């Protein structure tokens, strides 16, 4: 078990490194960074000012070679020349180029060297530059477009609570509803109840949240409001000002009631969507278990049906359920990108899609890295949980 855990942790660290390098390479090659934004701002009035271009290149490390940039991004080093015991090491190591072009270096001893860079950047020049503490310490740098110069980690942490609330609540509700429905469907297989919920589940999983969300807004926010019925809000997580809803009365902006009022529609949409998968999973898992010999044995020794179902069947049917629970971990953080966009929910999924549309790659990469890490951890947790709930399985 311990060996297994260590091996898995090593794999996780390796995967995280590969993903972080790949995502950094994406970031490095992606178009539409701060320089292009500057160019598009200035092209209408004047040509890009060379000083300003240099300032921006220095600010975002755009002048450095990819290896150095990756190191600075990952661990926050090098920051200027490396000093070992009062001795500077390689202060003149070229680490980048501020301005491409031909140039001649004239050495004091009269040697002339031709280089391909008009303004080389040396290791010692990195001294005064602002740098993050590195992704390793969860410092993802600063946002480039969405909220200029605001740390990405701060941007994400302000969005964490709404996403956790939305995802946590909808997942919880989906499971709470899915377990009894799935169990009952399996016990009364091919009954009217089973048929109804299987079809409903099919509709739930077949309809994109895009559609159900928009329809929800249309019906419960627009039509209900026009008809003078108690309506639900179409967007955001809380109101800007107090609202009076018919038959219910005043809702104060920012109060608990206001937040719950805003949660109803997005949570319902997400619950309806994920309910389908959970119900189907529980139902088929339960059907599988009900066919087992030990269930027949339990019935044969005269146990009442409720005990057979709840104790003998359900507990075993929930074993594979554990693996699904672990998959929930990354989605709790990552949010539902589409649902959050439909409802303008101020969560992490919406932040991610905003950062992509605005080409704010540090934010997007931070999101990606955290999701990947949580996905990997989720797999590990599910494996470990599996051995705990099912003693037949041994990790090796």
């Amino acid at each position, binding site marked *: 078990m311990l060996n297994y855990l260590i091996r898995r942790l090593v794999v996780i660290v390796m*995967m995280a490194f590969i*993903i972080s390098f790949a*995502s950094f390479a*994406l970031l490095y*090659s*992606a*178009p*539409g960074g701060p320089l292009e934004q500057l160019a598009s701002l200035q092209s209408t009035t004047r040509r890009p000012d060379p000083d300003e271009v240099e300032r921006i290149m220095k600010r975002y490390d755009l002048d450095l070679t990819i290896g150095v940039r990756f190191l600075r991004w990952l661990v926050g080093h090098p920051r200027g020349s490396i000093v070992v015991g009062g001795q500077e090491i390689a202060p003149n190591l070229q680490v980048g180029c501020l301005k491409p072009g031909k140039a001649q270096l004239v050495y004091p001893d009269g040697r002339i060297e031709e280089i391909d860079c008009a303004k080389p950047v040396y290791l010692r020049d990195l001294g005064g530059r602002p740098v993050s503490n590195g992704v390793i310490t969860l410092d993802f740098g600063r946002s480039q477009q969405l909220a200029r110069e605001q740390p990405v980690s701060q941007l994400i942490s302000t969005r964490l609570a709404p996403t956790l609330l939305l995802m946590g609540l909808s997942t919880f509700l989906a499971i709470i509803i899915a377990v009894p429905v799935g169990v009952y469907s399996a016990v009364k297989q091919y009954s009217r109840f089973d048929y109804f919920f*299987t*079809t409903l589940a*099919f*509709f739930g*999983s*077949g*309809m*994109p949240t*895009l*559609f159900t969300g*928009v*329809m929800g*807004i*249309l019906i419960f926010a*627009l*039509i209900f409001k026009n008809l003078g019925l108690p309506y639900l809000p*179409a967007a955001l997580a809380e109101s800007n000002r107090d609202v009076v809803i018919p038959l219910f009365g005043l809702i104060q902006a920012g109060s608990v009631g206001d937040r719950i009022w805003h949660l109803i529609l997005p949570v319902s949409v997400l619950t309806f969507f994920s309910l389908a998968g959970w119900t*189907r999973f529980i*139902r*088929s898992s339960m059907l599988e278990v009900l066919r087992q010999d030990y269930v027949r044995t339990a019935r044969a020794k005269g146990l009442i049906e409720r005990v057979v179902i709840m104790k003998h069947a359900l507990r075993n049917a929930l074993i594979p359920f554990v693996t699904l629970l672990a998959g929930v971990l*990354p989605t709790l953080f*990552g949010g539902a*990108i*589409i649902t959050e*966009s*439909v409802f303008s929910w101020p969560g992490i999924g919406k932040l*991610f*899609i905003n950062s*992509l*549309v605005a*080409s704010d790659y540090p934010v*997007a990469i931070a*999101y*990606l890295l955290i*999701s*990947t890490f949580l*996905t*990997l951890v989720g*797999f590990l947790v599910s494996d470990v949980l599996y051995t705990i709930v099912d003693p037949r399985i041994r990790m090796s």
Partner: protein
Amino acid sequence: MASTTADLPAASRGLNLRKPEGQWSIVLRRFRRHRLAMISLFVLAMIFIASLLAPILAPFGRDATSLAPRFSPPLTVNAQTGTTHILGVDHVGRDFFTRLLYAARITLSVAFSVATAATLLGMTLGALAGYFRGIVDSIVMRILEFMASIPDFPILLIIASILITDPKLLPYPPFLLDIIGNLMLLNSVGAERAQVLTMIVVLTLFGWTGAARLMRGMVLSVRERDFIESARSLGANNARIILRHVVPNSFPPLVVAYTLSLAGALTAETALSFLGVGITDPTPTWGNMLQFATNFMLTNPWVPLIPGIPVVLCSLGFNFIGDGLRDALDPRLKM
């Protein structure tokens, strides 16, 4: 010749007249029993025919703007030409019905291209991995494991947003662009064709894993059977064994997976275009039409229904057909 049949007893002639029911007619009969799948097949066929006939059915040009006021309601008569805007006019004065037809053509073509390419790619890799085992298998399996342990939707979004903002990033052969352009009636000027092709490529790259895993599993179970052994002893080579014996025997679950991947590709394309990192206006797709519709739905509530209903009909339709096929092809797989 006639006498040889004539002198047989009448009874035995009658016995052999009815051919035994073939596998496909059994499948067809079972499929017909699935009512929702049959309805879906009918609805999808209608949408499909409408999208094929888009240039004939469309009363206006795809990007032509009319002088009718923005968001004129359905059945507004165009003052210039006297033609009716059946579903009204969008936010820049283009005919909704026309754009819906062209969007159907683009969205469905993308879905079919992605599902077909991804299934073929997955089948090939899965079959090779399962049949030859060894190094091919471990490479394919490592890739599959890697793809399974990354959050694919965010990565899909990032890659789409990078490639689609700059569609000329990938060098496409001109003939491929021409095929795409003619199939989906795209403008040849601008990056319209490259953008749609990028969408197909990106979705395919993320869509093949399911088919590969399925195919590999099927091949692993089929390759140990006796009939493969007998085919080999009769002198069949690997290619023949894979194509004539292994693939047909793995067919039923693959057909089901293909239908379901159609639904997946359709919703993925719609979602990307809706989120603004997919196919962009003026190329119409249901996704980007829905995006604009939601921006204006507070004042024009009927607008999101126009692209929304076909999306949900197709998504549900493909799912139901997949379900019907699963019941028909292999009753043991029934949920």
